[in-house]
Structures are given as structure tokens and as C-alpha cells.
């Protein structure tokens, strides 16, 4: 089953002379269970692609189907719903809500989804347990290390059981040990059948995926399946 289907998507920032073509007609299709790494130098348009895939931004032209639904036709409220139910975000800078416990951070997407508090807490604990942070549930972000914060962010992305896990340079701000922790979690999730899309510029992170897409100047330069490099 196709989770996401991007058709000739282009994105232009600015107008006229100052126009910047961040994406020039990218077409990409990701099947359920794929573990895709998108690589490219800075300015290649990978973050723009990521934002469009995450429904945070809209393409200038082209079509984006998520689970078979054309996202460009959705209104504000429906987009919020899509972000909540279908997509799990992991950011480079963690983006946890400050002064809020890890548990509450993980609960947040469920709160927006309207899940009852008791059930929410239970599911959040399960998600935290999955990333190995069950004992840090009551810590606030500033009491956690970078790697721990990112693991909380992963738990938060997982808790709604989304169709697609989007990670934008998830290891960009982490040391090598924490990077390894996070990648190990991704490996597990992939093995469990999750669809993962990861953006990175680190070759050894890209090597862990089953499919490698290289972006260059807003276009796909190569797209090939690869054997996973074991950790």
C-alpha cells in the first residue's frame, strides 16, 4: 500500500527576479514499511520537501497524496487532523514544550486527538517505555540530555501510531552515542513495519535505511534500494 505519493511537486519562494526554486518537480512514492533516507547537501531542498510531506507547508504546484488523500484540498481543520493522526514528527532541535514533563509532552498529540486522560497516560507511558525512558517520565526537558530529549520526541511522534514517521535531521544535534540510540530505535520501528522517512546529511545515518533518495538542486538525483548496513 502506498503511504505517500508525491507528483511533480515544486516549491518557489519569492517572486520574479528574487524567486528561489527550492523544489523543481519532485516525484516520489513511498510504500508502507519503507525506511527511506533523503540525503542532499544544504540547499538541495530536502527540508522544503520535508515540510511539504509533513503538511506544514503547501507546494506551489504538483500533487501530494497522503494515504490516497489529496492534501491540497484539505482545509485548516482537516490539515490539523492529518498532522495529528497520520504523521509523527521528529525535529532536529527536539521541539519539546518547555516546562512540561516528558509524559505530558508525549501525551500532547493524544490530547489534541481527544483521547481520554487515563487512556492517554497509559499510552504515553507505553511509548516512553519503548524508547527506554519510562523512569524519566516526570522530568522536564531541561532536566534531560539531548539524546533523552530526542527519545522523548520519538515517543511523542509514535504515540498516535501514525502512518508515517517523519524525521528531519533527528541526529543532527546529537553525539555519536545518542545517535546510535536513536538509530537503534528507528531500526526497531522499521522491523516492526513502520513507515519511516528520515532526512539527513550524514552518510552513516543514510546507510541504515532500506532506500536512499538523493536530492540535488531541488530534483531527485538518485533513488535506489539498498541493503541495510547493520549497526
Amino acid at each position, binding site marked *: 500500500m502506498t503511504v505517500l505519493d508525491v507528483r511533480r511537486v515544486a516549491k518557489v519562494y519569492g517572486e520574479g527576479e528574487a524567486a528561489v526554486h527550492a523544489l523543481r518537480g519532485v516525484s516520489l512514492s513511498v510504500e508502507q514499511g519503507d525506511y527511506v533516507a533523503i540525503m542532499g547537501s544544504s540547499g538541495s531542498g530536502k527540508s522544503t520537501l520535508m515540510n511539504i510531506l509533513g503538511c*506544514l507547508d503547501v507546494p506551489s504546484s504538483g500533487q501530494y497524496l497522503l494515504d490516497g488523500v489529496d492534501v491540497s484540498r484539505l482545509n485548516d481543520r482537516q490539515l*490539523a487532523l492529518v498532522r*495529528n493522526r497520520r504523521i509523527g514528527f521528529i525535529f532536529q532541535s527536539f521541539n519539546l514544550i518547555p516546562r512540561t514533563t516528558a509524559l505530558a509532552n508525549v501525551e500532547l498529540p493524544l490530547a489534541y*486527538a481527544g483521547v481520554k486522560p487515563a487512556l492517554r497516560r497509559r499510552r504515553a507511558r507505553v511509548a516512553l517505555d519503548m524508547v527506554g525512558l519510562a523512569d524519566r517520565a516526570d522530568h522536564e526537558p531541561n532536566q534531560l540530555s539531548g539524546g533523552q530529549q530526542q527519545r522523548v520526541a520519538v515517543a*511523542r511522534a509514535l504515540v498516535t501510531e501514525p502512518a508515517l514517521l517523519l524525521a528531519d535531521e533527528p541526529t543532527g544535534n546529537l553525539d555519536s552515542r545518542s545517535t546510535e540510540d536513536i538509530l537503534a530505535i528507528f531500526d526497531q520501528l522499521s522491523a516492526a513495519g513502520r513507515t519511516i522517512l528520515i532526512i539527513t546529511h550524514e552518510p552513516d545515518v543514510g546507510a541504515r535505511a532500506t532506500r536512499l533518495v538523493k536530492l540535488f538542486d531541488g530534483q531527485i538525483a538518485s533513488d535506489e534500494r539498498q541493503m541495510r548496513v547493520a549497526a
Partner: protein
Amino acid sequence: MNVWEVFRFAVRGIGANKLRSGLTMLGILIGVAAVILLVAVGNGSAQQVADRIEALGTNTLTVQSTSRGGSSPLTVQVAQALKDPVLAPDVASVSPVVSTSATLTYQGTDHSVQQFVGSYATYFTASNSPIGRGSGFTTADVEAGRRVVVIGQTVAEELFPGMDPIGQELTVSGALFTIVGVLAEKSSSSGFQDANDVAIAPLTAVQQALTGYGSLTSIVVEASAPERVSDVQAQITTILNQRLKVEATSTSTPYRIQNASQLLETQTETADTFTTLLGAVAGISLLVGGIGITNIMLVTVTERTREIGIRKALGAPRRVILTQFLAEATMLSLIGGGLGVAAALIGSNFTIVGIQPVIVPSSIALALCVSVAIGLFFGSVPANRAAGLRPIDALRYE
């Protein structure tokens, strides 16, 4: 997201920056307290005035002469003409009054009273001056011209400190008067005069001893009921016009009729204007407090732009973000308003510029409603701005 959770988010938002939230609340607190307290002060002064006027008696009318210098057209005959069951059925009593200042002497002690009043026995009820101790004089006393007198509290204290004045004799301009009673203390002094500094004696005795049988100072007319006062005014106007030969077309009359309820009305109007003015000034400070809320909420939204972006990326609908910030603004103004009400209630226990404030309950409700409305209104601009942010812009915000 139920109400309770929105509430918890709002509490967390307010608690995140206590000093700032506190100062914002202070603005609303001062505004609300000022509105309630100043309206209470206005109301208190209105009640004070009303009490004073009511002390004069609300169902009495006073006829006074307007002719200056020359002799007053009001005589005992005119006064008796007003007691006419056919032409003036609503008149309960008529008391002709002569009043003069006099010096009272008792065993070498002097005391001068502003008002040495000569009148009928009906004057006591008509002028709302009940007898405290002893008795008043009777109609028989008036007819016989007996020299008896009823004195006010102030006179009793001045001339007879620590002793019973009843039965004592005092000298007024060479004439001896026997004290038969003391007036009950009047609650408030009306205007500049001490209402307790009076002496009341039979009309005939005062005329004989002091003023002579000339014209009257005034005539006090008592209506049968407070609501008949305007009828009585019309009736005695007719009689007086007839009696004093005033042309129907004439614009000026040689007399003037004052009635306490009219006076009360005018004073109440003045006091209401005063209250409105005070309320308006206080309202402005409440408005300034409201602008303070907008300001602080705008700062909060800017400061938390990134957080708003994260929330949106996690799927927070526009409505939830809107409610969260609105709830925060409303809570700020509501807590501020509540504390303001408390401050006003405490403040109203103290006398402010000589006036005991009287809280108007509706002003509390109004001030609280207004403060909630301010929260909603002034909070809606920042809340809308927060809710309208595009997630990608909010996330990129540094």
C-alpha cells in the same frame, strides 16, 4: 481537549511568568476596585444627602416669603386660611413659624441659639423633631401664650451640663421660659447649621416676648401622606394666590414653597451625575488595565511562537490554540477582577474623604462582567494572531 484541560493549560501559562502575570492583574485589580469603590463613594454621598433631607421630613412643605427687606405677606391669618378642609383636603396640619436668634441665659451662663422658634404644637411632627424627654407644649399652651420651651440637645448640653433641664427656667431677652422638654437628638446636621441647636416655644409666647405680632418667618404645612405632597402644593398655591391677590398671569409670587421631596430629587440627580462621573473616570482605568492585558498577551504570543508551531505540528486545531490564549487572557482579567472586588470590599470599610462608601451590588457584578469581557475582547487579538500562525513560520521563528 475538555474545559478542564484548557483551564490547566491557562494556569500553566499564567504561572510560567508570575511577576508579569501579577503586574497585569494589578492593572485590572486597580481598575475594578476603582470602579466599585468610586461608585460606592458616589452612592454613599447620595445616601448621606438623602438622609439629611429625609430628616427634614418628606411630607412637609415650607412656605417662605420672597419679599426682601419689606414686611412678609405671611401672617397668622394666611396660615389659618391654609387649614381649609374644602380647598385643601390633603393638608394635615399648618404650623405658622416665627424664628429669631436669641440668647438664652441660665444662672449666669449664656448660650445663643440660631433658631428660637415660635410655632404651634403641630410643628414637632411637621418638622420631624420628636420630643426626647419631658413633653412638648399643647395647643392650650399656645392659646394661653404660656412661656414654656422645648430645647434641643446642644442647648441642653451647653446650659445644663450633667443635670436635668426639665422644670428649670431660663431667661430669653428678659422673659422667663420654663423648660418642659428636650428634643430627641437629630442624626445629622443639615447643612452648616447644627440641627440640635434650637429652642421651640409656643407661637404666641415668642411673639409677645421677642418678635412682636408682625409677620411670620414661614409656614410649615404637613401633607396627610408623602405622596400627597404635590397635591398639597397645588392646593395651597391656589389659596395663597387668592389670599395674597397674585394675578394669574404674574410670573413672580411674594412667597416660595419648598418641599423636601423636591429638594431630595434635585440632590439625588446631582449625586447621580457625580457617581456617573466617578464611574467614568474609574472605567478609564479599567480600560487601561485591559490594554495592559492585550500588551502582555501579545508579548506572550510572540515569546511562545515556537511553542505554538510545535503544537500545530502535533495537530492542535486552530480552535484549541485560540481557546488556550483566550482562556489565559480571561483568567488574568478574572483573577484581577476578583482581587479588585476584594480590595474594594475592604476599602469600603474605611471613610473616604468624609464619606462612608455604600457598595452598589450591581456595580460588583458589572465590574466583574466587564473584566471578563475585557479579557475576551483584548485577549482576542493576540489569541487570533497565535491561532492564525502558519505552523512552518511558527516553527522557524527564533
